Every structure is written in C-alpha cells, then in structure tokens.
C-alpha cells in the first residue's frame, strides 16, 4: 500500500505542475493588465512602472513562472495583488461558507427531488405526474439569479421574513445561520431538485417494472411498502452517485447565487479575482484546489484498498 501511495504522489507532481502551467499561461492570455485594473483612476505611468518591477511583471512569462515556482516551493501560496491578503487566508474565509451553502442546498434538493420523483413514477400518466414534471421543468429553466432576486423582493423586502443577504456560520449562531442560508439554499436546491426528480422518476420506473417488485406485490405487500422499501432502495443507487456529483458542482458553481445574496463564498472569490486580474488569488486558489482534489482522490483510493482487500494485490 505504501508503494501505491508513493507512486500516486509521484504522479501527482507532474499533474500539479501541468495545472500550474495552464493557469499561469491562461491568465496571461487574458486581455488586460492587473496593474492597470488595480490602479483604477490613478494610473501614474512612473508608479505603474515601479510596481511592474516590484511584482516582477516586467520579466518574461517563463521567468515569472519560475519565480512563482520558487515561492510555492518555499510554502508561500501568494497573496492578493489587490488587498494584500494571503491566499490561504482567503480560502479559509470562503470555503466553509460555500460548504455550508452546498450542504443546505443538497438537503433541500433531496427533500424536494426524491419524494416528487417517486410520486411522479408511481402515479405515472396521471395529473400528478404532469404537475411534477411541469414544476421540475420550470425549476430547471428558471435562472438562479432571477429566482434569487424575486425571492429577495418578496420574502425580504415585502414580507420582511428573512434577511436579504449576508452569511452567518452555523457554528456561530444556528438560528441566524438558518435564516440567512435558507433562501440561497432554496434557490440552488430547487434547480438541483428538478434534476434529482427526473432521475428518481426514471430510476423508479425502471425498478417498478422488475420482477421482484411484481413478486412483492404478489406476496400481498401494501403498495407503500413495495414502493418505499423494495423499489426506492434500489432506485436510490444512481441517485446517490448523482448527488455526490451535484455536491461537487455546488462547491464550484454557486457564483451567481452567491452574487445575488452577497454571500462571501468560494465561487465569488475566484470570479472576482478573475475580473480584477488578481493573478495572485487566481493562481493560488486554483493551485490549492488542484492539490486538494489530488489528495482527496488519493485518500479515496487508499480507503478502497482498506475496505476492499481484493484490490490490495492490484
């Protein structure tokens, strides 16, 4: 097993290197100059020249890359050109926010998606099925940011039930955390619920056709028991896989919702950084994410081996 870990780590090095090269080059292919963006209105050419030297932007791209490598090797992931904040601190601030939002969204998506999917499958062809389908289609086609703004206007501005924006950690104040997270989570969750509903429906239809379900019915089991205990369990397997995929998507792709509800999340961090041409943040965040992914994959592989002895010889 140790040799496997070692081998995997060795493979990880070129992978990370490639990721670094890609981010570095792609960023510099973007039009725009980070110093000009930073300077905003105050672009005194003399000052800009000095800053260019200070940050090493006056050197060729390969040389800049080598400088970056040297920094990384000494454990420095860089800092924001715009505010001077270290990248690691920025990730530490934003990642927990996005994780809380993603978990809440997924819970909402599951709570809506699975029951409606089951219902639609069981009542296939009836009005219930059509209604569920119509709702799920609208869920898929309504843009997140629009739903978000409508919810803010209705729930926060008119009814004053929930705060329109902001974020509170669940470990800090669970009640406030619930109040601030529920709306954005619903916005994100409703879109996913639609996907989940459609997958649940088709998985259930598949399973309900199988022989063992007919046997269960023939045994004289009550319909709810047939559906929930026998059919749903088997139908859930692809749903679980899908949910984990959706969760990964949520971590990266909640930008618009974060923007509307002004939640200081991970997605917003990187998108803002790209728009500001904040090279330091973009590079640092992408690198950290790549390393995290590689480590997680490695851990998963190790766990497979621990759990499943058959893999050990391989």
């Amino acid at each position, binding site marked *: 097993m140790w040799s496997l870990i070692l081998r995997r780590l060795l493979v990880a090095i070129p992978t990370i290197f490639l990721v670094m090269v890609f981010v570095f080059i792609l960023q510099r292919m973007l039009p725009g100059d980070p110093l*000009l963006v930073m300077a905003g*209105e105050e672009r*005194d050419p003399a000052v800009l020249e000095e800053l260019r030297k200070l940050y090493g932007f006056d050197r060729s791209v390969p040389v800049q890359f080598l400088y970056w490598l040297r920094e990384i090797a000494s454990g420095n992931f860089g800092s924001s050109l715009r*505010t001077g*904040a270290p990248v690691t601190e920025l990730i530490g601030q934003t990642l927990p926010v996005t994780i809380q939002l993603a978990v809440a969204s997924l819970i909402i998506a599951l709570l809506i998606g699975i029951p409606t999917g089951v219902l639609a499958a069981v009542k296939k062809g009836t009005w219930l099925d059509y209604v569920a389908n119509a709702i799920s289609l609208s869920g898929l086609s309504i843009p997140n940011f629009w739903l978000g*703004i409508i919810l803010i206007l209705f729930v926060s501005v008119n009814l*004053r039930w929930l*705060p329109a924006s902001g*974020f509170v950690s669940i470990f800090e104040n669970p009640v406030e955390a619930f109040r601030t997270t529920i709306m954005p989570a619903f916005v994100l969750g409703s879109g996913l619920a639609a996907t989940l509903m459609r997958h649940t429906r088709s998985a259930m239809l598949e399973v309900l056709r199988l022989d063992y379900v007919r046997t269960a019915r023939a045994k004289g089991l009550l319909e709810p028991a047939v559906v929930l205990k026998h059919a749903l369990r088997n139908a859930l397997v692809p749903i679980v896989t899908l949910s984990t995929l959706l969760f990964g998507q949520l971590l990266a792709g909640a930008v618009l919702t974060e923007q509307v509800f*002004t939640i200081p999340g991970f997605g917003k961090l990187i998108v803002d950084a790209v728009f500001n041409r904040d090279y330091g943040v973009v590079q640092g965040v992408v690198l950290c994410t790549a390393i995290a992914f590689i480590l997680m994959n490695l851990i998963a592989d190790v766990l497979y081996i621990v759990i499943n002895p058959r893999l050990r010889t391989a």
Partner: protein
Amino acid sequence: MPTLARLTRGLPALAVAALFVLPASAAEIRIGLQEDPDILDPHEARTFVGRIVFNALCDKLIDTNEKLEFVPRLATSWTVSDEGKTLTFKLRAGVKFHDGTPFDAAAVKANMERAKDLKTSRRKSEIASITSVEVVDPLTVAFKLSKPDAPLLAQLSDRAGMMLSPASFDKPVGPKPICSGPYTFVERVQNDRIVLERFADHWEKDKYHFDKVTFRTIPDSTVRLANLRSGQLDMLERLAASDVKSAKGDKSLKVDSVVGLGYQGISVNINNGARADTPLGKDKRVRQALSLSIDREALTQVVFEGLFEPTGQPFPSTSPYYDKSFPPPKRDVAKAKALLKEAGVEKFSFEMQVANSPVDQQVAQVIQAMASEAGIDIKLRSSEFATMLKSQTAGDFQATRVGWSGRVDPDGNLHQFVTTGGGINDTKYSNPAVDKELNASRVVYETAARKAHFDAAGKILREDLPIIYLYLPAWIWASSAKLDGFVPNPDGMIRLANVKLK
C-alpha cells in the same frame, strides 16, 4: 451638605444624558458599498470606496466641507510662506492613534516620508513637490516644497494627508490599519464586509454616535436597495438613478443627492498610435460636430432621470473654477453638418469603446442615435473594464467613453488628462499653450489668479476637444428614514460626524 446638593443637581442632567447616550451607544450603522475597497493602507490605496472607509477609520490633516472649503482636522491651522515654498501646519494637541501612540509633528514627518518612499506608494505624484518635512516643535510641522504647489492642500485633505501610527510601519499596514480616526479596525472579509468599532480615545468622540460601523460590499444596485428596504443596511452609496423614483416613494427611506466633482465624456484618440488616424482624431471640426450633435440635456433626462447635470467643461457647477460664461452646449445638428462639410467628411464612421455595464451601454446608444442624425455613424465596441483600460492606455481606440470621479482641486480634473506627457493623457493631445496655462495654475495659490489660467486653457480645449465633456454625475445616497445628520458632500464621501439613527 454641599456635596449632596451638587450631586442631586447633577442628576437630571445625568438622566437626560443617559436617555440620549444609551440608545445611541448601542447603535450600529451598516453601509452598503458598490465595490470592494482595495488595500486599506492610505498610502497604497486606490479606490473610491476605500476612501469612504478611510473617512471613518483615519483622520487627515485637513478636510473639505460640503462647500469645498478646507476645514481643520488634525491640523488646526496652516500658513503658506517663503514665496509659496513652505507650508506650515499647527497640529491638534492630545490626539492619539488607535494603538495609544501620541500624534505629533514627528508622526506627520514619518507619514509623509513613508508616502514618498514606500515602494508601493500611490501618493508619490500627489506630494512630489514636498522636498522635506521639518519638525519645528512637537505641534508644528513645516513642509518644504521645491516650488509653489497650489493643488497640494487638496491632496492633504485626502489620502495623502491621512495619518497612520508610525509604530505600525514595520508590519504590513493593509491587513490591520492603525490610524487615529473615530473608528478602529476590527475585521475584514474580502468582497463581503469591513467592520470598525468606536475609538474611545478619539479627540472628537462626542460627535460620533455609533459603536460599530459595518461596510458591506454589494455590487448590484438592485440588490443593494433590496437590502436597505429589508433592513440589512441603514445606508447605501450610489443608488441607481433609475431607482430614485421608487426609493423616494417609500416612506421608510430617504434619498440624498448632490452633483459630484467628476465628469463623464468621450475621449478621442488624437495622437496615441496608428488608430488616431481618423477624421475624428485629426480634425477638430469633426470633434466639434460630434459634440454639437449630442443633446446633453436629453441624455441626462433619458438615462439619469434628470438628476445628472449636462456640461461642457470638466469642473462641477459648484466649483469656484466653473466657467460661467460657457453654459452647457446646446444641440445644433445643422451646424454640426456644416462643420462636417467644411472638414470634407459629410459621412463618416468611427468606433467608440464602451464599458459593458447596462448604464454605460444605454448612454452610448443614446449618443449613437443622436450622432447618426448629423451623419456620424458610431460603432460601439463594448469591453469588460480590464480590457478597456488596457486598450485605452495602449492607444487601441478611436474614441472611448470615459469618466472621472473628480477631485477637490480643479487641477485633478484637468492637468494630467490634457497636458503633454500627463499621467492619464490617453488621447496624447499636446498643445504648448494649454501646458503653459495649466502649469502656471499650479504655482499660484489665489483662486482668482488660478481661475484666469483655467479659463484660458478651457477656451483652447473647447476648440480642440480632446475630451468631449457630456454630463456631471450626481452622488445619490439612500438611507433609512431614521438616519439623521448626514451631510451630502460633492466628493461623494460618507462622513459619520453627527450622524445618528433615530
């Protein structure tokens, strides 16, 4: 029982004081900003919103009031001597920085030296005329200048005059700035919020009524307004002009506005690389025609609900340097056509670069429609902000829709844009007569004498039109109707002195 009598006499006053002080002392104000401020180091900072935060966090030597006059802050008085080459400040006694370090002449010297010497300082050009700073006595400091510098006072009323605790210089200032302002730094979450709390030892603490000040970054103006309406904010800056009507109709809200110091216009590439080679860049009559084809009044009515002011010059109408003999130009399509004919380009087309925000697009489309009636075909190229800046400095534009947030001193609105080699002279316009007048305006201090130079330069610039000025934006703030005591200032800042939530 003299003591008891004195005690009881004081009681009603105490009770009254308690009534007023207690509710206020528990207060917090939450202010919505349109952008995230950049680094919180006054010597390195660049953004407009950053200046709003600094106004709560840091004291400056002097300030400007709503009439654009200089008023004392950390400096109680100032004098110009030695033929305009020495600027002497008397300093306020008993002022402390947030870390307890006393504020004195040595601290001023240390700050000015940092602003001049720090590698990443953005203040260098603002205070370039200062050759040395002398500590005369603990409460008197003299700035020695290489030449008279009229715009310097205005610089010192902004970030260049903000004082940091010299004890904080050995560590990076940005992550935890230590100033002497009414509020101290607590925390910052990038792109989300900056939290400040009351500084108990501030020299003017009685005027500040909040325990906590939170600045929140909410870029979308609709969302920012929704947050004010739902009570997550007490105040916001830059309400969209299109939202003013609905905000004014809401009894729980209050709207304040004042015409600002900045302008919006069109910069024409006169001599910046190959793309300057257009009829528009080469012939001033064509630029005059373009200017005449635009109905500025209609533009401000259509896009900005009439809240912004049409103009033909770079200074706000509130400024003493505004040239009253030149009212906002009226539209004259016939004259525009005649000028084009004279220039031999009755029909021509050029490309105008525009930022990709909805409002900028709208402005550009209105201009496009108006110009087409005079036979000028404008092709719009919308760019994302970073790209636009780059092509502007690189000369990759024929014309570009630009704006300037404005400076207190008129020099800041003009000199660097139109003088030869000026720092932001993207049009690369160059005219020795203009250079001469504008350089001369820098070395005299009297308003009337300076105005004569600005008027003379203005006259030439209105002929040559490297920048076609269109309108003066207004700053619009919306706040809870409970907010009291806020004074709109043309510089767009939010000063919290005497501001309360009832």
